[in-house]
């Protein structure tokens, strides 16, 4: 049983540096960071002190408002340092790994009931992989969601190929889907890419409602899929999980141990060897890739990833690093030149359409100055959802809750409108505007 969804709007950004399908290194770092900042909305309470011994799966941080939400250590070792920032904000707990590799045994059997699955997910810290829509915050354990959505592919620029990263872990993935199915009455919706439908193992997923999706980015975004399959109304909740973390949940329920090992794609024009590295979240970025001077390392993809400094650590949700040159160089007569072969533009005011297959060595230059909204048609062309992006954006700017609701704030996260950032000739920060709108909703609706 499957449903088809063909999306026409969207844009694939032709960025150079896709990862080759090979694992070039397996990194078990000496130090691992457990970061509360990976989870939006979490108010951290520290549960360990320096020198404490932790196992893989031991709680390190809990949430102040809901103590059942735990952030756990992905490795066994001893707490080496508590890193705090301004106003003593807790930034990270550094764990020095030991060779023992011991993990907490959560003692779960395959056919556990709903309460046991919930309890084990919470105790293992994997509950935090459940993202609640609307708002994109940690799922509330007290709520039963309308349904759960998993997109097995990503269309984001240079996104990891899930067939490669999870192809050998399909059993884990299936076990994860089975477990998630216990948490909702509405079923688990799994989206599979039409382009690779027959090749991908995911089309064999059982106990789920399959959807075959095709289209350019953001067709792979789970938010876009939800808005077509079953739009979120006021008062409804839907949970989403990334396929990588579904596999982690599957491994947890089949082995009883927390194992967050993942293949991380190291990509981008400035990646020395674009390929995969097998590691765990919290690994120091410098252990994974060496960047030159003047290169920005992004955790995630170029559209919605976060900038990681050279001393940063891989995040809980990251399965990709992108390396870009900082575009501080100033191009003479850039906008006035008839041809700019090194710059990509989706607009037909330039000539990128002549070379549709070309990949570009993009940098982080803004390519212009910020202006008021003038051309707004471009937003609709890259937003395959039944919303009016410009009206939603303006409602967010105005902080008008009623209008935001009408224009579909419950259905979007900034990542779903990330392409608007890219195409806007007026260089507005659309994702930041939407984020602000969502934060206001959370505050006002609480």
């Amino acid at each position, binding site marked *: 049983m499957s449903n088809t969804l063909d999306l026409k709007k969207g844009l694939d950004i032709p960025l150079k540096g896709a990862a080759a399908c090979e694992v070039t290194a397996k990194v078990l770092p000496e130090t691992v960071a457990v970061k509360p900042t990976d989870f939006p909305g979490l108010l951290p309470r520290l549960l360990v002190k320096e020198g404490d011994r932790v196992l893989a799966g031991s709680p390190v941080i809990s949430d102040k408002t809901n103590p059942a939400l735990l952030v756990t250590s992905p490795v066994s070792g001893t707490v080496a340092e508590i890193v705090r920032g301004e106003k003593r904000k807790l930034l990270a707990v550094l764990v020095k790994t030991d060779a023992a590799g011991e993990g907490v045994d959560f003692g779960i059997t395959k056919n556990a009931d709903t309460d046991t699955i919930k309890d084990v997910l919470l105790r293992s810290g994997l509950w935090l992989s459940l993202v609640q829509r609307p708002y994109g915050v940690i799922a509330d354990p007290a709520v039963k969601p309308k349904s759960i959505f998993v997109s097995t592919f990503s269309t984001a620029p240079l996104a990891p190929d899930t067939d490669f990263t999870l192809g050998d872990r399909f059993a884990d993935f299936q076990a994860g889907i089975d477990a998630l199915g216990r948490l909702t009455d509405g079923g688990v919706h799994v989206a599979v890419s039409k382009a690779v439908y027959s090749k991908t193992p995911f089309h064999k997923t059982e106990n789920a409602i399959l959807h075959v999706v095709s289209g350019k980015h953001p067709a792979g975004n789970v938010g876009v899929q939800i808005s077509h399959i079953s739009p979120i109304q006021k008062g409804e909740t839907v949970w989403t999980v990334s396929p990588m973390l579904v596999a982690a949940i599957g491994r947890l329920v089949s082995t009883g141990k927390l194992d967050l090992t993942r293949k991380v794609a190291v990509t981008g024009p400035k990646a020395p060897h674009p390929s995969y590295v097998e590691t765990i979240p919290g690994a120091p970025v410098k252990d994974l890739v060496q960047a030159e001077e003047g290169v920005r390392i*992004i955790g995630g993809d170029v559209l919605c990833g976060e900038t990681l400094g050279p001393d940063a650590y891989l995040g809980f949700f990251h399965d990709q690093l992108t390396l870009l040159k900082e575009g501080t160089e100033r191009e003479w007569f850039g906008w006035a030149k008839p041809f700019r072969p090194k710059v990509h533009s989706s607009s037909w005011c330039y000539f990128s359409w002549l070379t549709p297959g070309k990949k570009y060595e993009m940098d982080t230059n803004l390519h212009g100055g910020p202006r008021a909204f003038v051309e707004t048609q471009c937003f609709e062309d890259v937003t395959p959802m*039944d919303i009016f992006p410009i009206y939603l954006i303006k409602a967010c700017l105005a902080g008008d809750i009623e209008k935001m609701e009408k224009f579909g704030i419950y259905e979007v996260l900034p990542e779903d409108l990330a392409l608007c*950032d890219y195409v806007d000739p007026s260089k507005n920060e659309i994702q930041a505007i939407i984020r602000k709108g969502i934060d206001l909703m959370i505050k006002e609706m609480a």
Partner: protein
Amino acid sequence: MADQKKTPWWHSTVDAFDTFLRVPGTVTAKGAHVRDGIDLKRVMIMVVVALVPCALFGMYNVGLQTSLTYGLEWGFWQMFLYGLVRMLPLFVVSYLVGLAIEFASAQIRGEEVNEGYLVTGFLIPLIVPVDVPLWMLALAVAFSVLFVKEVFGGTGMNIWNPALVARAFLFFSYPSSMSGSSVWVSKTWVPTLKGVDAVSAATPLAIAHDGGMDALSAQYSFMDMFYGFIPGSTGETSVVAILLGAILLVWTGVASWKIMVGSIAGGLLVGWLGQIGGATTLPCYYQIVMGGFLFGSVFMATDPVTAAQTETGKWIYGVLVGALAVVVRLWNPGYMEGMMLAILLMNTFAPLIDHCVVTASINRRAKKIAKA
């Protein structure tokens, strides 16, 4: 605060020239880490490029009309050069006055100078009679930039098309320089014509208004009007030149083809109704090639800031612009060109159209979900 002190008070002006020459070195700080090469400068320059055929042909036509009307035996280059020399001061005044106000306003607001006036400044000389006194033009530009654009917050915030308001300002303030049958052919700068009385050279629109199809076909053929060898505002006469610009605008996606097609369809429809209803003897397609109809549909009605912004709204807006323009032409005793007022009126109603479209869409969606 320390940073603010370092920037000199004229930084908007400095930034404007600096970024005109070189792309700013700003890097992305939040949101998407890479950005499209497109910026507003490129969008605006595309419109100016699209206007170049109209401007070049218009210059030639200025010379041609003078030569024909006053019986001067000029060659091609003489006609073109006369038009070029006659038009240059208009462009200079339009840009000097407009940009001075733009720079000053940007300075006061502490923002970067906006590119919108690149287009407006090029449009204004093309839609006024070529012999309009320069001080009048300067006044109109100043009025329009100040009271139509800057008071609303600059490019992107305005409600009406500034170039058209400049024309409307001239039209209502100095009607003798803006209408009638003797303003459309330039003679002021021809030395041999000093002291010669202005010869009446009515536009096809005026001829058809007074004498109908018979009077018009006695003087101008359809192809004359199609190619543009007729008196009128400099940029508006040639359908060929306007279509060249339209192709570029639609190709690059800078202007909406829906508005253009809608406007022409609306004009044809009302023109046809007028013909079968007996209001005019002209075939409906004459309405498109005469006067400023096509120029307005392609370059003025499509301004993305003042037009409707929803896709359905663009159709409604376009059709109404074209229809209203021809309604004014046909059922109006004195004033024969309706395009300017039709666009300005629809600019006013564009937000209302969008509001209706958006509300309808929200209701439709709510119903769809309620059923499911």
